[in-house]
């Protein structure tokens, strides 16, 4: 068997092992990789940074634990920045496995900043059918959410006084691990015209640049790199910055695999052509 045949038919377990080793080595060695700030992430940062005292924005936590590695750091950064600006937050979680995960993060960060539920923030929780819920929130928050996640009547919460729908808030930052992003664009921005920014997973990024160019979203935080950029801007490196070395190592391994397999592929093809010419 020629070297290229061996390379082309390598057992997949070797590939898994090399990838695992690359990630573990990155975990053990304290590597810090600098990130360059992109315009689309800076736009989200500026949006939060320019919030005035007491101003309210909506943070939509539309993902579940499967994508929390990429999206949770974004949610934490946005929450921290809003609280540092002394802004207020309306939060919802329209992914069925999201609310408990979101609640843990909200309570932890709110405690850190001494913020109180119902006054500085409200967590509305989950409602099925995201498209319908977004449309209904555009009419009146109280329609889909007459009570918040903790069972408090929304009308009794000071933060909700004077807040009826998207017209009364600064805008929405929706962190989405799936097609809720499309629903926020179609039913949130297109119908009600509220300013919208998205935080999405790395694999979704290519699908949403057209909305950025069309102005339907004013900012975009793509994947763990976007999260790391946001952390860099807020001056609080966290899980996003910590995730970059793993992502870089695994991508580097995949790129090396692609190069190697193509070298072997072309070597084999050229050998076959030569053999064909001899016959």
């Amino acid at each position, binding site marked *: 068997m020629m070297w290229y045949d061996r390379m082309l038919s390598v057992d*997949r377990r070797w590939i898994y092992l090399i990838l695992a080793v690359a990630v573990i080595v990155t975990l053990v060695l304290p590597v810090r*990789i600098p990130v*360059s700030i992109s315009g689309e992430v800076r736009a989200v940062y500026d949006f939060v940074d320019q919030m005035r005292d007491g101003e309210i924005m909506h943070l939509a936590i539309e993902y579940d*634990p*499967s994508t929390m590695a990429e999206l949770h750091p974004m949610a934490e950064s946005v929450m921290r920045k809003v609280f540092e600006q002394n802004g207020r937050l309306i939060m919802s979680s329209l992914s069925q496995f999201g609310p*408990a995960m979101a609640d843990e993060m909200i309570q932890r960060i709110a405690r850190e900043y001494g913020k109180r539920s119902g006054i500085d923030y409200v967590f509305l929780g989950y409602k099925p059918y995201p498209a319908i819920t977004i449309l209904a929130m555009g009419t009146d928050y109280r329609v889909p959410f007459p009570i918040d996640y903790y*069972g408090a009547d929304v009308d009794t919460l000071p933060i909700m006084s004077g807040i009826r729908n998207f017209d009364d808030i600064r805008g929405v930052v929706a962190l989405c691990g799936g097609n809720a992003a499309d629903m926020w664009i179609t039913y949130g921005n297109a119908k009600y015209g509220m300013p919208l920014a998205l935080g999405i997973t790395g694999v979704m990024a290519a699908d949403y640049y057209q909305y950025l160019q069309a102005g339907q979203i004013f900012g975009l935080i793509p994947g763990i790199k976007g999260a790391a950029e946001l952390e860099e801007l807020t001056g609080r490196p966290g899980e996003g910055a910590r995730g970059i070395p793993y992502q870089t190592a695994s991508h580097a391994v995949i790129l090396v695999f692609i190069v190697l397999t193509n070298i072997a592929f072309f070597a084999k093809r050229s050998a076959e052509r030569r053999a064909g010419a001899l016959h």
Partner: protein
Amino acid sequence: MKKQIPIYLVFVCGIIMVAQFFIPHEYSAILFTNANDFVIVIGILALPVGIYSLMKSTVEKARRQPKERLYSLTTIIAFVVMVIAGLDREWFTSPTSLSSRLFNYVLVPAQATLFSMLAFYIASAAYRAFRARTVLAGILLVTAFVIMLRLIPLPGPLAEANNALVRWILEVPNMAAKRAILIGVALGGITYSTKILLGIERSYMGGD
């Protein structure tokens, strides 16, 4: 009659919902709210059917495949425990409750692990399938390579050049293709919806 009534219902409800979308009036909002409540009620009514279907297929599988019984049993136990643990609002909003603990220490790690394993499959697939067999496959390969390269720290000018190239790929060819697909899908959706409203497309009722 069995087919005519659903067609009339779909036509009337569909036209009303389309009209209300474009009418910015209080009554339109009230109608929309009530219609949405109907959707949620219908969804809730479908829930017992879903639970029955899950239980039936799991029990059936356990009966037919003795080797799979452990998995079926796990499904049933997990289902029953989570339902009981979440019966009261207090039980799932409290961080120390059984529901929260099951969620945080079972579901979260399980979902995160399953999603992380994708990286291994992607690496294996990249090695086995990403080969420049044709010119088109070569273009796809180079594009993917360039996009992925932006996540690798490169020396200054090289990183800038690569970032500019990535941005161009995302904003010009990628965007053109995505927009063409989206417009096509939207037109297809409108056509399909119109056919349903007019009773031409009836597959949603089952049968042919």
